[in-house]
């Protein structure tokens, strides 16, 4: 994937666009690369925190990719993990402070999971696998692509959990009151943590039966 020698490449060439779109489906960070599961599941009870979390992760991945890629020739390989951790935690502190200042209620709901973006495997995984070997612009696009790929799964999972678990979407009531009068009830199980795992498992199942080449060989 390295294109170090083609310096005059157009910024939005087909190759760069593929970096952006591949993580959305075929190379999705959660369902294919198995990165960043921890936070993906805990913040998906409601749609709003999930969207905020997805944006926060996208910003952190994109900018840490950019910074690491710019520094990649000066970072000594032996201490690279610590250097990467410092870059990532600086960005996370910035994001955390911004969230606390502008959307305080969401920041309370996310609690420790904003801090846990530091150890989110997506960030470290992309830094190690991509930013250390590619030019800044490609790394930046790759970061945005992976952040969005992560966000898509978060939004799908939280959509179903909020709709079936609380009957609302983004905080607005969508299941009409009449349904409840006829005996419809919100599924309390959807709000509980284990359902997130089962939903992601189902997404993996559907995704893999549509893309046969992703099926485990063993």
């Amino acid at each position, binding site marked *: 994937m390295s294109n170090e020698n083609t310096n005059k490449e157009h910024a939005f060439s087909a190759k760069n666009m593929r970096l952006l779109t591949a993580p959305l489906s075929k190379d999705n960070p959660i*369902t294919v690369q*198995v*990165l*960043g*599961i*921890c*936070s*993906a*599941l*805990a913040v998906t009870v409601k749609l709003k925190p999930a969207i905020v979390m997805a944006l926060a992760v996208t910003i952190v991945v994109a900018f840490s990719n950019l910074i690491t890629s710019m520094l990649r020739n000066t970072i000594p390989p032996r201490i690279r*993990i*610590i250097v990467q*951790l*410092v870059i990532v*935690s*600086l960005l*996370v*502190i910035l994001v*955390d*402070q911004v969230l606390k200042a502008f959307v305080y209620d969401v920041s309370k709901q996310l*609690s*420790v999971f904003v*801090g*846990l973006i*530091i*150890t*989110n*495997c997506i960030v*470290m995984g992309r830094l190690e696998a991509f930013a250390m070997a590619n030019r800044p612009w490609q790394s930046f696009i790759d970061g945005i692509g992976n952040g969005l790929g992560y966000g898509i799964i978060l939004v799908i999972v939280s959509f179903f959990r909020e709709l079936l678990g609380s009957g609302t979407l983004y905080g607005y009531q969508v299941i009409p009151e009449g349904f409840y009068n006829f005996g419809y009830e919100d599924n309390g199980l959807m709000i*509980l*943590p*284990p*359902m*997130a*795992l*089962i939903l*992601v*498992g*189902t997404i*993996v*199942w*559907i*995704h*893999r*039966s549509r893309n*046969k080449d992703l*099926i*485990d060989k*063993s």
Partner: protein
Amino acid sequence: MQDFINLFVKSIFIDNMVFAYFLGMCSYLAVSKTVKTSMGLGIAVVFVLVITVPINFLIDSYFLRKGAMVWISESFADLDLSFLSFIMFIAVIAAMTQLVEMIVEKFTPALYNALGIFLPLIAVNCAILGASLFMQERELESVGESVAFGLGSGIGWLLAIVAIAAIREKLSYSNVPAPLRGLGITFIITGLMGIAFMSFFGITI
């Protein structure tokens, strides 16, 4: 003493790192193919948690919290450095993992060979940083409590990874639908185990 035991038992079963908070899922999914390796990783995690949670507790209560630095000078009473906690905690964790690795290598080469590659990986395991952040959020009161909490969370994580590894070993003999094999079925089983662990939720100790 009883408080410590309560906190310990609570953090193993009720607040289980994997089933209640999904922390450390990445290595949980990646390393749980055999019981032996997952046992090694689990022990390493317990080890690092028991060391880092109390150290981060001390850093938090003597440097970062609002008014924590009064012991240096009265003029620091209004100083609140808690926004620095992420970077301090992760630095302690990265340094400690490195240190633990060197100590284990020097004194127990057998254990070092068994853990090998897993030790450095622990620095980026979310369960470790998560435990430190929960320690800060729940406002534990003493070093003893933080040791009990660290040990309990570690053992809870060890329990979870060994259990899923044992299930996955047996699973290789069963006929799972092809698209669900590997990652998919592991997710669903973890979900079912989480539901089983929820039976501990109502218990107050």
